[in-house]
């Protein structure tokens, strides 16, 4: 078993072999965080790679007495938010209202109806996990396109990755109260989007 701390220590001394192993350990995490924010697989991969290149140049400033993951999150999140902001039209996942054009009636297409009908089954753990997640990803990207980059980042870190509010505040360089505000706003937007597009998930739920 590779010791993460040892890899970090060696990477700080510019040991590329150790750094490659560290990349292997953290790449899934970096990609997932980036994916939740930028909403496109290829873009997320690019952001993850940029994050590691950036990490290489700043890893010698990492304090080994602190936790590595939140410190690394910060690099990924900042790059992902920058990427998201710089992309003029925001994420355009397959099946998003933007990518479908304006011919859809009321923002919903036949494909949406199919997905909406299929979602209750897909969302069940018994369904094929990867297919389910791919569909959830598509739905998330579709409704999260309405979020501001910071709101999207906060929601992803808090509700998907389960990162504590204080840690998110440190990662994003904002106050914990601002994190909560972003989270509330993001939840409101996402709930509205989900209710509008997939009302079946609101049966019996508190509004």
């Amino acid at each position, binding site marked *: 078993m590779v010791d993460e701390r040892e890899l970090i220590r060696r990477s700080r001394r510019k040991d*590329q072999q150790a750094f*490659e192993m560290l*990349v*292997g350990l953290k*790449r*899934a995490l970096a*990609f*997932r965080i980036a*994916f*939740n924010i930028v909403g496109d697989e290829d873009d997320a*991969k690019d952001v*993850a*790679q*940029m994050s*590691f*290149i950036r990490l*290489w*140049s700043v890893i010698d400033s990492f304090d080994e007495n602190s936790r590595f993951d939140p410190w690394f999150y910060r690099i990924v999140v900042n790059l992902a938010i920058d990427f998201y902001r710089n992309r003029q039209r925001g994420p355009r996942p397959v099946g998003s209202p933007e990518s479908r054009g304006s011919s859809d009636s009321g923002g919903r297409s036949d494909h949406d109806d199919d997905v909406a009908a299929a979602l209750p089954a897909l*969302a*069940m*753990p*018994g369904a094929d*996990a990867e297919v*389910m*997640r791919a569909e*959830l*990803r598509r*739905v*998330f990207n579709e409704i999260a396109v309405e979020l501001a980059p910071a709101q999207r980042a906060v929601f992803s870190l*808090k*509700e*998907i*990755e*389960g990162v*504590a*509010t204080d840690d998110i505040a440190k990662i994003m360089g904002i106050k914990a109260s601002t994190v909560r505000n972003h989270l509330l706003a993001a*939840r409101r937007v*996402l*709930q509205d989007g*989900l*209710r509008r597009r997939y009302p079946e*998930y*609101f*049966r*019996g*739920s*508190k509004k």
Partner: protein
Amino acid sequence: MSRKPIDLFDCERVGSYIDSYLLGQVPPPERRGMRQHIHGCEACFQKVVARDPLQLFAPLADQTQPDEFWEGFWPAIHEGIVRQEAGRRPRPARDAWRLWTRVAAVVLVAACVTAALILVPRLVTRPVAGVPIAGVPRPAPIAEAPAASPMPQTVERVLTDGRRDVQVYTMSYTQDSLQSTRGAAPVAELVLIVDKGLEL
């Protein structure tokens, strides 16, 4: 022989902690355990989503990519690192070129100034000294132009404010100096001011 791990978070226990879980009040280790159970148990997952529909997206945290997805991932990073390091390295040849360019420019300017200082006094025909620097008068009109001389008339004056002197060379080009025609008025004047106190 492998054993199925004991599910410490059974449906009953998870059910009693769902509200705390949704409020983020369950500590991380227990939260991970609860999440594993919820994502693997249809009944509990439906309960959680019924309370908070946005929990629908929680399983995205478990997303993994196939091995093929990572092909080329490290080589691209490595290439980026190499490019980044190359960009940071000093460029001695280029720096040296820049230095020599500056030296050459200074030498050229110095040569021009020296040439002017040597050549201009030779052209002086009538030095005038001691004119105060305040109230600089226009150069006096040239009374007599040398006959058939193609050279311009040059007047040197030394202007002073008591602390330093400035040499003013005024070269008046007439039709004489240009075309060897006598009696014509000046058509152009070149004024060269040499400040002896100027540090180059």
